[in-house]
């Protein structure tokens, strides 16, 4: 928990009401985003995102697996977030576990689409090697290294960066296997396939403090929130997932207004993130 004095609370709330926050930002301005890709050589793809003091790492590992019988033409993706107690003492034990599940579920909701696989940011059918027999299983693991608010947006951005950094080995399927036999495969260690990450949404969290909403709230600002809505928006401007936090009730018209604000903010965030990712990739190639 953040210990704030009454004066500090008033300062934060008053600043937000007057559109100048304690670190000088406006209500709808993000902190500078710092992207590094390829930070974990063991993984197929990885990225580290820093927004102010919030620091997260996301990795992608691909393994060959078998598609589930209900959806033979789709690969599988699992997302897991780990909040290490090294980041904050409150992450120890049950507190960290609860936050981890909450973040994992919110990310799955935003990135994996409906049960039928429609509207998924990650194209699951591109993960299939042999229909009904072999597919790629993507394990997306995220680690919260340091937390200073707005974890969900940072994690969403880190996953997008990590996926665009991911190379999936090309697989040669040995001909001749028939019927129910599991075909033999040869995994190339030279040729890699790149992921199409243009459809992956960005997550924008609007935190409601008083009567106004802010983006990219710090921990101090989050402690003053009445409720927050995380909305993931893709390039087409469609909403791909929505999660509400905080117990306070909201008028439905405010929810709709928040959705339209989030759509507007997401365009800028998407462009900024894309250029940062491209710059990080270019920097990695040079070194």
């Amino acid at each position: 928990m953040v210990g704030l004095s009454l004066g500090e609370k008033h300062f934060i709330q008053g600043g937000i009401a007057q559109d100048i926050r304690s670190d000088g930002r406006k209500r709808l301005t993000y902190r500078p985003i710092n992207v590094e890709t390829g930070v974990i050589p063991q993984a197929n793809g990885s990225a580290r995102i820093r927004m102010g003091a919030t620091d997260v790492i996301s990795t992608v590992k691909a393994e060959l697996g078998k598609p589930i019988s209900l959806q033979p033409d789709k690969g599988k993706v699992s997302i897991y977030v780990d909040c290490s107690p090294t980041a904050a003492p409150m992450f120890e034990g049950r507190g960290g576990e609860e936050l981890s599940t909450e973040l994992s579920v919110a990310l799955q909701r935003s990135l994996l689409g409906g049960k039928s696989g429609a509207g998924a940011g990650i194209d699951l059918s591109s993960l299939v090697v042999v229909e009904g027999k072999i597919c790629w299983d993507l394990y997306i693991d995220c680690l919260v290294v340091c937390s200073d608010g707005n974890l969900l947006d940072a994690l969403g951005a880190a996953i997008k960066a990590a996926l665009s950094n991911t190379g999936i080995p090309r697989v040669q399927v040995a001909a001749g296997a028939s019927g129910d036999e599991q075909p033999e495969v040869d995994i190339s260690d030279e040729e890699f396939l790149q992921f199409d990450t243009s459809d992956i949404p960005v997550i924008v969290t609007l935190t409601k403090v008083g009567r106004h909403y802010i983006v990219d709230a710090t921990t101090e600002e989050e402690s003053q929130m009445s409720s927050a809505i995380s909305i993931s928006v893709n390039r087409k401007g469609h909403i791909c997932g929505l999660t509400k936090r905080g117990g306070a009730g909201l008028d439905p018209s405010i929810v709709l207004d928040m959705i339209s604000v989030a759509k507007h903010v997401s365009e800028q965030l998407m462009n900024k993130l894309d250029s940062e990712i491209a710059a990080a990739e270019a920097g990695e190639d040079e070194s």
Partner: protein
Amino acid sequence: MAGKPGTTPTTYSPSPTNQKIRRPIFNENEVDWVRPDGRGFHQCRPAFFRTGAVNAASGSAYAEFGNTKVIVSVFGPRESKKAMMYSDIGRLNCSVSYTTFATPARGQGSEHKDFSSMLHKSLEGAIILETFPKTTVDVFALVLESGGSDLPVVISCASLALADAGILMHDLVASVSLSCLGKNLVIDPILEEESYQDGGLLITCMPSRYEVTQLTVTGEWSTPKINEGMQLCLDACSKLAKIMRSCLKEATSTSQE
């Protein structure tokens, strides 16, 4: 199964004003199908509530929506565990679990953490926690049979159990979910529809205050569609709350007799 006829409507489908919007949706896509249980797209399953299902609890409720059957008991307010820090407002502790026989494939029967936290977030805004400082209210929900829309039924049933326990709330909490199948919105989906859905929307709200306490959306949605879905759900929620309220009234009037 259903409540006494004539007293209250047992269904909480949105009002006919929405049916005007509904017709063009059907024609334009030529994808009209009959839902597995023969309902219309915007027709909800009959809702049945009964309070006082468990004697040992301070309040409890049983809900049955089609094949979805849940039981919720509320214990407390009782003393918080010794290890807990002092708190000048009350604590709410929620737990949702499934029986091993609730799902088609035999389940684990363990606590459903995601649903538990969703239930907590839906209810905490409605309960006036200031009225029972230093104490904890435990809400235990058990899904006896999973027939689709489990979480909304659990939430509605839990708020009824809280009311039965006499815990002060701003309003009853009603919850309705909706599935997006192709271009159609299907309200109160059953298990089969949920497993094929392209997207889902869940609203929990306090109908008298007209406030949304919890909202989740999955899948890809355009803004007008979210609008339409929210309106449908809010309308259904306010009708569901009427059924819940009449169930409470019925329970108190029979106990007085």
